[in-house]
């Protein structure tokens, strides 16, 4: 029986993580174990047959843990591959706790990807949030503790909205828990609630500010994991349930542009990359919104390519942070002589995300834009093309230029520390870089994994000409206005202002107006309340003493007098009462029988 043999890849990671603290001995043994667990999960996904597995009856519900089809396979494939790469990158992290949290986080993501009902989805959805927050906390800075709590609170809110949506759906459909196309043609309240739960994890503005907030503050290896899993699992969930939901097209376009604008302003390399996740996920959200087979293929392909090149970029900038303790452009610059290989890896990531021919983004992103043009969605398609100019501007040009070239802002200490990172980090970057180029050069590798048959050819002369013109003229603009883009030592306010400063406004409001109102009210209460109260109290005290007590005592005396009389009347005459009662009963009985 296949069902009996089916092992959930999430189970491999969870068991692997739980056994992790018991793996002792030399470093080699530990590293082999760290390699083995994600490798087993990856092989498990590769060898998995299609079908439905892991069906469990729980109370009235049928829970399905394993729905293996085209859509879940492509996501499972890339998630476990990225888990392997990320684990290799994070091997030299202090202690194993980061890897422990990361594996549970990936397990959450895989659980969502393979489940077929909303209960299992919700459980794993929450596992993701509650394990990934440790990847922020483990950074150990004061800011990371607060950023982690904000991350957790926002995701708890998202989880509750999702839960409300699926409970309403359960009631409205008479107990339907299946996780599939939700019926985007006739959306109801629960459709929107579930959608909000999903798009919060996809970081759609205005529900996106958690992303740069947390990812910029995460540990070096933690950010590599985080940039891959949360948003792309949300894209999977949207592709599964909301393909063709019209509102996702404008939302995706807004995301793509929003990320670009904030990336221009950003001074921190990893926060810039985080904003660019929002931009890139915008393409996928728009792709899901378009909803045709080509667009869904494009969204999946782009998620696949994105996980690799964004992971690579976070690994590159993470290496700079790891070696120099700096991630701000205003503290870096001119490092190509010190970290040349890291530069090359990051550049490969940058060229991939910018969709240069022969790199992965070229064969994935264009599929979404082409699907837009194909459906005659001219504005979205042109705006997404505009955003792709922005992608090259920041990630392909700004990041490499201001870290490895440009003005050298390094302190002496930073310059001394800068060097290419330890070998495991380089191996991880090399593997990711290999896949970025391999996917771009050999299209069948990715296209054969996609859920629908692909009838798209990215390497036409016109598409090459179009892309190269946009990219290289963007580069021209960059070098002409490079001074304008010079790093500024600032942060940019975003929607997190509302819950960061908003809480301060609330606290101020609680301290100042409410407190003084409270004081004033106390005074009013004292003057207008307590003083008359005391006067009245004294009056009532006098009244009680003289009035009430007099009346009560008088009453008591009266009652006592009558009681004395009554006592004299009933003086032990029980036999007389009984004879009166017997006589009465006799009279009633005679009257009753005589009238019958």
């Amino acid at each position, binding site marked *: 029986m296949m069902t009996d043999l089916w092992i959930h890849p999430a189970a491999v990671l969870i068991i692997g993580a739980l056994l992790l603290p018991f793996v002792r001995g030399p470093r080699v043994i530990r590293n082999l174990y760290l390699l083995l667990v994600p490798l087993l999960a990856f092989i498990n996904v590769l060898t998995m047959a299609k079908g439905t597995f892991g069906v469990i009856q729980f109370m009235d519900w049928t829970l399905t843990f394993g729905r293996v089809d085209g859509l879940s396979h492509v996501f499972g494939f890339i998630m476990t591959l990225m888990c392997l790469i990320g684990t290799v990158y994070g091997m030299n992290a202090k202690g194993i706790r980061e890897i422990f949290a990361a594996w549970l986080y990936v397990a959450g993501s895989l659980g969502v990807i393979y489940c077929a009902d909303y209960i299992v989805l919700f459980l794993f959805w929450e596992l993701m949030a509650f394990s990934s927050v440790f990847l922020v906390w483990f950074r150990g800075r004061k800011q990371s503790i607060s950023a982690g709590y904000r991350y957790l609170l926002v995701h708890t809110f998202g989880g509750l909205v999702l839960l409300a949506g699926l409970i309403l759906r359960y009631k409205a459909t008479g107990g339907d828990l299946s996780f599939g196309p939700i019926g985007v043609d006739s959306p109801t309240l629960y459709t929107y609630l579930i959608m909000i739960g999903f798009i919060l994890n996809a970081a759609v503005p205005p529900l996106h500010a958690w992303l740069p907030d947390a990812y910029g503050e995460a540990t070096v290896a933690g950010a590599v994991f985080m940039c891959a899993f949360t948003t792309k699992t949300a894209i999977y969930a949207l592709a599964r349930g909301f393909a063709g939901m019209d509102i996702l097209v404008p939302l995706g376009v807004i995301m793509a542009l929003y990320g*670009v*604008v*904030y990336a*221009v*302003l950003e001074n921190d390399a990893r926060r810039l990359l985080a904003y660019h996740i929002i931009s890139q996920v915008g393409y996928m959200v728009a792709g899901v919104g378009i909803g045709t087979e080509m667009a869904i293929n494009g969204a999946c392909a782009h998620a696949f390519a994105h996980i690799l090149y964004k992971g690579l970029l976070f690994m590159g900038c993470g290496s700079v942070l790891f070696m120099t303790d700096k991630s701000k452009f205003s503290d870096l610059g001119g490092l*190509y*002589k010190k970290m*040349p*290989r890291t*530069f*090359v890896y990051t550049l490969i990531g940058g060229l991939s995300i910018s969709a240069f021919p022969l790199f992965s983004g070229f064969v994935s992103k264009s599929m979404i834009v082409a699907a837009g*043009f194909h459906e005659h969605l*001219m504005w979205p*398609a042109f705006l997404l*093309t*505009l955003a792709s*100019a*922005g992608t090259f*501007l920041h990630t392909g040009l700004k990041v490499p230029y201001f870290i490895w070239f440009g003005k050298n802002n390094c302190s002496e200490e930073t310059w001394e520390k800068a060097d290419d990172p330890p070998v495991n980090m380089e191996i991880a970057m090399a593997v990711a870089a290999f896949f970025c180029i391999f996917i771009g050069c050999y299209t069948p590798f990715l296209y054969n994994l996609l859920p629908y048959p692909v009838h798209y050819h990215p390497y*036409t*002369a*016109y*598409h*090459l*000409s*179009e892309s*190269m*013109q*946009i*990219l*290289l*003229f*963007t*580069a*021209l*603009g*960059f070098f002409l*206005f490079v001074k*304008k*883009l010079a790093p*500024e*030592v*600032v*942060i*940019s*306010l975003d929607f997190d202002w509302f819950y*960061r*400063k908003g809480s301060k406004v609330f606290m101020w409001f609680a301290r100042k107006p409410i407190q003084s109102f409270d004081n004033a009210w106390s005074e009013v209460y004292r003057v207008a309340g307590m003083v008359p109260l005391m006067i009245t109290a004294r009056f009532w005290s006098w009244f009680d003493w003289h009035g009430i007590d007099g009346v009560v005592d008088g009453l008591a005396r009266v009652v006592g007098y009558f009681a004395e009389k009554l006592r004299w009347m009933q003086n032990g005459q029980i036999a007389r009462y009984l004879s009166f009662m017997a006589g009465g009963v006799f009279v009633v009985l005679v009257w009753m029988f005589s009238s019958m």
Partner: protein
Amino acid sequence: MIVQFIDFFRDRMKMTVRLCYGVLALLVIIDIIPGLTGKEHHAHSWVEHYIPGWWSIFGFVACTLIIFVSKWFGHLGIMTREDYYDD
């Protein structure tokens, strides 16, 4: 090796810049020559048909717009001091 490769171009900045301008010009020329890129079949809209070097203009204008609009937006008060949230 990587450093030497980069330094080779940095030492010959003038030549590098000219080379880049040459590539840009070549791209526009390729776009303008009819029948070379299959524009007639693949173009999505009329602008691509009738404006020579459309995507070059688009790329440059897009880049300029993004830089200036974003910076304008940032200087409206969105960009602020780093310790803004600390107090």
